[in-house]
């Protein structure tokens, strides 16, 4: 099964906007789809982890990149 990948640019946004935007974006996806989020808020690293564990979505990967942070989340 090929997974559909969606992207969300949350750069320049601060707490709690990256979480709220992620929530909004992921709601529109189908189960199993991937959402790739880029953010600059350092707090988003732990917050998105917490978001995933609370909502049941899977944090596939989370890493620091040149211009901030990059997350891959699979919708539950």
């Amino acid at each position: 099964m090929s997974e559909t990948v969606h992207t969300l640019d949350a750069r320049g946004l601060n707490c709690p906007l990256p979480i709220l935007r992620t929530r909004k974006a992921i709601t529109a996806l189908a189960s199993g789809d991937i959402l790739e989020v880029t953010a600059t808020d350092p707090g988003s690293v732990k917050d998105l982890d917490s978001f995933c564990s609370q909502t049941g979505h899977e944090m596939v990967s989370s890493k620091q990149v040149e211009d901030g942070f990059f997350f891959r989340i699979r919708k539950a």
Partner: protein
Amino acid sequence: MSSTAPVYDIPKKDLDRWFDQRFAEKMAEREATHIPSMTIIATKGTLDMAYPPFILASTAAALGWDVSIFFTFYGLNLLKQDLDLKVSPLGNPAMPMKLPEGPTWIKGREIPMPTSVMTLVPGFESMATGMMKKTMDNKGIARIEQLRELCVEADVKLIACQMTVDLFDYGKEDFIPEIEEWVGAASFLPRAQKADVNLFV
């Protein structure tokens, strides 16, 4: 207890083990289906104190929680159609006085300014409010209007204190129509009683 109740001859040890197992299962089941809930009481109407209730409420809603905010006293100002929130340096010695813009030698540097004295200068409060808003925009912090809209969108229940409206002679038409209900403490408390998290801001 009725005398016709059946009597089982099960060793206590087995019964205990069965109960422990069933109990753990039931608890896990409950945990899995439980929707966390939070109630917040918002009592302040300044720009700085408008953030905690709206940030916490919108974030909790994003986590799938069921959230209500009870706005009372000055907190009711946060539900006005036209938000004109200010932040006062008076009685707020921890508020950093920093210029959001300007040459690098001064920008972002703490200005040693006794806020309690400076507040007496006419216009100082508006200036401080302007500086705070500018700083927030620069840092990508959401505007209160935006956070409030996000709360409404995420089904956060906005509950207004009826007594406050009567007390300050407010007109209900000055407030946003998304207010779920106008009630008193006796209507809010049962909701708070069932919530997992209760906050007073």
